[in-house]
């Protein structure tokens, strides 16, 4: 492009002017840099040289105080107690190995611990304090203090460690803390600097882990000036951290304690839930273990039995376990059918003891049959054929959809680890996951809570609470944080026909209170405390077995779900006894005992029990009274 000489010249004038301007600005900025350099290197030189030569600035993290955990009545479930430890800063120690050996002699540190402390010293950043001995006595602390001049970089520190005063009662709710592992660090995108403090504790499972963000708090820092031997000369700046939040759980520690004691010797799970707010009052899985053992790292002597025990004490059966719900599922099949208008609650079905479908015979548990049964009778006596018939008419899709609305087959959001979603099978599910078409027998099995159908005890408790109230009760485990109440989730109407729900509750009442009901022996006598419920016995193997003749692993699971008081439901309960045999024999009595304990907020009067049971109950109450949490870690090994 050609331009006139004049235009080109005028352009160049503009350019030159602006170039001079920008150049001037650049030189001005450089002048500023020079001034800053002069300020730092000339005016402040003495101070900085002092800092560099005689002193060093160290930054120490102040670990935040972990939030404590309480039960609904303010009883402490997780607390921090002071512990003394000896720490050492590598860069201040001069000869770290020699100094460490001196300390080891002074406080009688074992050679293994000395070696591991040395390894840790080498790994840690040079300016970070490393713990070389933990949980030391006062004597050791004073010995180190007295000999401080010979031990540069070594100092005693008071820290805090987590303690679970309720021991094994809360291992499956509160969980436990442990040291930060490399795996924990790798899992985080941007780990908090505080996690790099050696032996810092973070939540490993359950509430401790799931509520880590709120419990941990924010680390403070202090900038300290230390001299060449590592002695702190003065603190330059301190930024206070923020303590973790205090959590209050919905659990009632007294009730939880009773339930754990009641389950002694079983492999079982119990969930007690408030029907109104969804608060979990007890969430017990037996056997349990003492979480305090894990805090400083568990020894294999303690750990191996927990791993190999066939009662699986490390598993939280209330939420991690998914079991065939057995007959406790029958309410769902019935609700699906009567809400769809396929059958009325009072219509009857004939049970000859089996149902013939496509050339295959599906048996009722009672081979001689129940005759003509309606909803109430079928539930009360747990007739299977009635539900086969309903399921065939309404279809699996509607049954699954109905059970989803009652909280089965979906993952409830609780601050517990590995919450299982259970399974409410559909045709699409089977095609996608099993690569096979749904067959009619699958529907028949599902109708009585067998086959692919799986639910956790927690889900069964939610289902029962929703049946009892007709509202979408949603479980809640955290009651308040720093005294501020957590919101109650869900709780809207379920939108079911009230009359159908009433019939269902009435039928569940009959299961427990009618002379011919399967749980009649576990009824509550007290008039205003009557319980309604349903027993379940779910097969572990596909053949019917006599539970007394087969090994424990092959016996049926015993289940019971219920709510009370019948007239004004307050609590829902779900009980599962792994391989416990029949639901009416193994699960219902536990449900009745724990329900009474909840209803009376403590030990119930024996008058609440049927008169024939009272002397047995008195003995049982005496035995269970104030069992200390850790006296009862009784597992399958003890029984053998």
């Amino acid at each position, binding site marked *: 492009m050609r331009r006139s000489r004049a*235009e080109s010249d005028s352009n*160049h004038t503009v350019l030159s002017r*602006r170039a001079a301007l920008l150049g001037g600005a650049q030189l001005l900025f450089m002048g500023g840099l020079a001034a800053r350099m002069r300020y730092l290197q000339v005016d402040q030189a003495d101070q*900085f040289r002092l800092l560099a030569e005689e002193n060093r600035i160290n930054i120490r993290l102040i670990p935040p105080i972990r939030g404590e955990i309480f039960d609904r009545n303010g009883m402490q479930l997780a607390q921090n107690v002071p512990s003394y430890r000896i720490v050492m800063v590598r860069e201040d120690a001069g000869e770290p190995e020699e100094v460490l050996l001196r300390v080891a002699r002074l406080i009688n540190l074992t050679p293994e611990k000395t070696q591991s402390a040395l390894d840790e010293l080498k790994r840690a950043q040079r300016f970070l304090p490393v713990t070389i001995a933990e949980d030391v006595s006062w004597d050791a602390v004073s010995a180190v203090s007295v000999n401080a001049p010979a031990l540069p970089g070594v100092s005693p520190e008071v820290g805090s460690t987590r303690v679970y005063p309720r021991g094994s009662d809360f291992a499956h709710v509160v969980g436990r803390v442990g040291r930060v592992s490399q795996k924990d660090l790798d899992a985080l995108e941007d780990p908090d600097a505080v996690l790099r403090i050696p032996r810092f504790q973070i939540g490993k499972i359950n509430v401790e882990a799931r509520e880590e963000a709120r419990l941990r708090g924010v680390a403070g*820092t202090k900038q300290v000036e230390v001299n060449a031997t590592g002695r702190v000369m003065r603190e330059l700046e301190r930024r206070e951290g923020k303590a973790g939040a205090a959590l209050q759980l919905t659990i009632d520690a007294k009730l939880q304690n009773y339930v754990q004691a009641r389950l002694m010797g079983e492999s079982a799970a119990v969930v007690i839930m408030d029907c109104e707010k969804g608060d979990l009052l007890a969430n017990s899985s037996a056997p349990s273990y003492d979480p305090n053992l894990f805090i400083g790292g568990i020894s294999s002597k303690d750990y191996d039995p927990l791993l190999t025990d066939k009662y699986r004490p490390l598993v939280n059966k209330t939420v991690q376990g998914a079991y065939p719900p057995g007959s406790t599922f029958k309410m769902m099949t019935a609700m699906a059918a009567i809400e769809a208008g396929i059958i009325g609650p009072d219509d009857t079905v004939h049970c000859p003891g089996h149902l013939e479908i496509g050339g295959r015979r599906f048996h009722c548990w009672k081979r001689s049959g129940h005759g003509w049964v309606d909803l109430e009778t079928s539930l009360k006596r747990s007739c299977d054929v009635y539900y086969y018939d309903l399921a065939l008419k309404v279809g699996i899709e509607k049954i699954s959809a109905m059970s989803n609305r009652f909280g089965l087959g979906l993952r409830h959001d609780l601050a517990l680890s590995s919450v299982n979603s259970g399974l409410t099978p559909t045709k699409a599910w089977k095609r996608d996951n099993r690569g096979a078409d749904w067959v009619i027998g699958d529907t028949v099995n599902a109708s009585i809570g067998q086959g692919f159908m799986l639910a956790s005890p927690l889900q069964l408790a939610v289902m029962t609470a929703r049946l009892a109230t007709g509202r979408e009760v949603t479980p809640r485990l955290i009651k308040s944080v720093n005294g501020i109440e957590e919101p109650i989730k869900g709780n809207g109407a379920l939108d079911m026909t009230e009359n159908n729900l009433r019939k269902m509750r009435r039928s569940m009442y009959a299961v427990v209170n009618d002379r011919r009901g399967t749980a009649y022996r576990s009824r509550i006598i007290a008039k205003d405390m009557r319980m309604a419920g349903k027993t379940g016995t779910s097969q572990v193997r596909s053949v019917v077995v006599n539970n007394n003749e087969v090994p424990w692993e092959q016996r049926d699971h015993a289940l019971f779900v219920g709510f009370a008081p019948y007239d004004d439901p307050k609590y829902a309960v779900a009980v599962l006894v792994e391989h416990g045999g029949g639901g009416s024999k193994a699960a219902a009595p536990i449900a009745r005992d724990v329900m009474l304990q909840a209803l009376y907020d403590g030990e119930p009067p024996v008058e609440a029990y049927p008169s024939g049971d009272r002397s047995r109950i008195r003995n049982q109450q005496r035995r269970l009274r104030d069992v200390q949490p850790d006296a009862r870690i009784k597992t399958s090994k003890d029984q053998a």
Partner: protein
Amino acid sequence: MSYLEHSVKSVPTGLRKVLFLNWPLVLLISAVAGAGFLMLYSVAGGGYSPWAEPQMKRFALGLVLMIGVGMVPIWMWRNLAGLAYGISVILLIGVEFFGAVGMGAQRWIDLGVIRLQPSELTKITLVMFLAAYYDWLPAKKTSRPLWVLLPVLVIIVPTMLVLRQPDLGTSILLLAAGGGLMFLAGVHWAYFATVIAAGAGLVTAVFQSRGTPWQMLKDYQFRRIDTFIDPSSDPLGAGYHITQSKIALGSGGWTGRGFMQGTQSRLNFLPEKHTDFIFTTLAEEFGFIGGISLLALYALIIIFCIVSAILNKDRFASLLTLGIALNFFLFFSVNMSMVMGLAPVVGVPLPLVSYGGSAMLVLLLAFGLVQSAHIHRPR
């Protein structure tokens, strides 16, 4: 009487061009690089490896490259400007897909022979392209909105791509260099005033919204900005480095602690002592006198470039020279501000001194363009 009128009346040809190089500039660049070798030798505890030797080899290679680029007529470079810009944008996009992750960010692209950092290249090609654009654009149109929008887009595209890597430091520098070039080209004052006012307004609005229901950023984003602006709020991370850097620098005093005597850098108090924080080591060991000398060398490089540009009647050559000088200025001044605790810690190396091949080669290439502009100026 200008220095120009004394020189030859025609553009030199052939090998004679070597005589017409801007030799003072070559000497200044070599002096700065020499200071770099010295420091790299020192921070390695008195050894040519691992840093000083490779750096010297790369500088030698870069010097040859610079002269080579300088021999090529400036109008050829102008014709290649669009292509160069296009290639670097494509490479930036390539980094998105094939880039290796180094130091937590995607910046490198492995070409087999060398590992290329396209964002380094973009610093130069962006300036080249803008200079060519303003050379082509009739001066009357310079400040018309449409013709202002176009270069703005040219700047924004690579800036965004670099920001995604993520490399905030380099993207801000690209933005500043691009804006500076538009200013030099004579875009009306009002545009800059508006952009600066709007920017200030936006920043104020974002900060004012903090803690209100209509908060524009998430809390953690605000916290990151806090640490960015005030590193002492993160005393274990960036704040620790700045504190140590200031101690090292300040303890140098007037004359420094002597070559290889800097305790702070020696004792590993300093991070990245061979790259971003190399100036601290220099200032600790050679004191205020050493630091100010390096700053003076930098200032002379800038002055020689500006003089060369003003004396050059070719618009493209002049703009290109100024743009490259501005880029160079931005880099060393941001780095120095950072180590002196005046600016947030962004990963910007000290040009010609910090260890690093990609940056040095690209910089010498850029000075090659300045040489070409100088040799082939209209007389």
